[in-house]
């Protein structure tokens, strides 16, 4: 047992703790001033702002879509259900870079809707809407996959009881189903948020990476690194890591609250 514990801790240290710790160390190596300056430039602020915009648009949309899809898959019988169920996992299976390229094919200038978009002055690719689309795509499965097992576990009896008591389908959903699945929805939201914060590949492809315009926090880390500005890259990384940690902390609190409620 002891050997196993050392192996596990050693593995974690080598893979997780050392690299992340080193980032923190390097960021503040030359004092907090340089790091602070670097993350408060207009470009940096814009990058963090843009990342938040991605999260604020993509996560609620995916939450609504995720709960609706999970309800559909767990509560209805229809043709093509098995197909839909496997398509949900596609964003896990496809590399984000491929997702980005695929979005360009559909929404880009030479894509299906390219002419129509151009005529109406709408820009999807190399602009915020495309980046939001990419973020939605990569975060798609989380809420569905967190809510599905909870729906299965609570079964249909509570919903049927509500119906026999005169509740409409909408009343049944808001008063019975949603409160019963709220923890599942919560975890889905947390995981989607973490993924949206950290997404790089798909957003990189569709953004065009224009500093101060279409550059998210992750893209900025890469851009600073390539511009031989390690402090800039590290400090942006630290801000991203802190955002991610805040999300995980929130998940932890959620889990603790759920345990207390179940007791």
């Amino acid at each position, binding site marked *: 047992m002891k050997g196993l514990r050392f192996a596990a801790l050693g593995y974690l240290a080598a893979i997780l703790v050392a690299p992340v710790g080193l980032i923190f160390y390097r960021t503040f190596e030359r004092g907090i001033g340089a790091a602070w300056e670097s993350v408060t430039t207009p470009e940096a602020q814009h990058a963090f702002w843009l990342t938040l915009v991605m999260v604020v648009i993509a996560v609620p949309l995916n939450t609504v879509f995720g709960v609706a899809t999970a309800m559909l898959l767990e509560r209805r019988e229809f043709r093509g259900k098995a197909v839909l169920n496997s398509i949900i996992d596609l964003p896990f299976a496809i590399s984000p870079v491929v997702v980005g390229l695929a979005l360009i094919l559909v929404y880009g200038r030479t894509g299906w809707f390219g002419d129509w978009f151009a005529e109406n002055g709408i820009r999807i690719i190399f602009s915020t809407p495309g980046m939001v689309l990419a973020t939605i795509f990569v975060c798609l499965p989380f809420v569905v996959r967190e809510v599905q097992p909870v729906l299965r576990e609570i079964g249909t*009896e509570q919903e049927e009881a*509500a119906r026999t008591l005169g509740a409409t389908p909408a009343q049944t959903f808001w008063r019975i189903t949603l409160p019963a699945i709220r923890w599942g929805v919560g975890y889905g939201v947390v995981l989607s948020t973490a993924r949206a914060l950290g997404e790089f590949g798909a957003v990189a492809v569709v953004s065009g990476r224009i500093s101060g315009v279409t550059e998210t926090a992750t893209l900025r880390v890469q851009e600073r690194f390539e511009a031989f500005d390690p402090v800039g890259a590290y400090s942006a990384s630290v801000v991203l890591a802190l955002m991610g940690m805040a999300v995980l902390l929130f998940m932890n609190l959620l889990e603790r609250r759920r345990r207390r409620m179940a007791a």
Partner: protein
Amino acid sequence: MAIEATDITKHFGDFKALDGVSVNVPNGSLTALLGPSGSGKSTLLRVIAGLEEPDGGTVRFGGRDVTHVSAQNRGVGFVFQHYAAFKHMTVRDNIAFGLKIRKQPKDKIKARVDELLGLVHLTGWADRYPAQLSGGQRQRMALARALAVEPEVLLLDEPFGALDTRVREELREWLRRLHEEVHVTTIFVTHDQQEAMEVAEQIVVVNDGRIEQAGSPADVYEKPATPFVMEFVGPVTRVGERVVRPHDLDIVQDAEPGALEAMVQRVVYLGFEVRVELVPTDGPPVSVQLTRTEADALELAEGDIVWVRDGRVPARA
């Protein structure tokens, strides 16, 4: 309200759950749907509640066709085997649910819920959550919740099936008394013949998606319409070719025409009753149920040779 289900059929994929079932439940009666698991009894109850749509047939409440009326608008109270408690609501909110949906005034809801809490003996438990209640308490809460909206039909799907024996007996007794007070037309599903006998005024025996027999408990027990009913509603034993109830048999010490010669294998004392297991010289083992007085008078011992006769037929002179 009288319930008439006529020619109900229901398939689940290839499985025929109900095969042209017709049931009449008189207004204000207490009826049991009795059958083994998978017989279709629960499906029939769910069709009556509007929770399943039948493939064919009609359901009428008091003469009105409700076949295509949704469960939401059918006005039935439904009680589930596993309580279906709203886990995130207190006992009070569970019971008040139907009244809140109907947008009743707050003071009226409170008064009605208090009354029901008293009826189901949960007055001190109003602010607890279902997880803090025992199984029996949860089921009483579910009953109060179903009764809150004053349904004209009360349907219970194996309501006591998940409870232990003592609580089950208490609740049976309680349900019968409740029915005497409230007089709502009630149907409950059970696989336990004793429960059906004890609680119901009318028993409908369901098997293999069909109705085997409908009648009073005494009718179903004494005059079973089919061999299935005979075997399902009470103990049976075989004497030669015939199937009879063990308590309809007698043991005599001397040979008689028509009696079956057998050796006593075991004498089991079950309180007031005594079960005697015998091996005939020819044919399968026979079980006879006697009163203690009868058994004592016979002074039976293992290995004795006796004669078994049908007690319902007077012995020939």
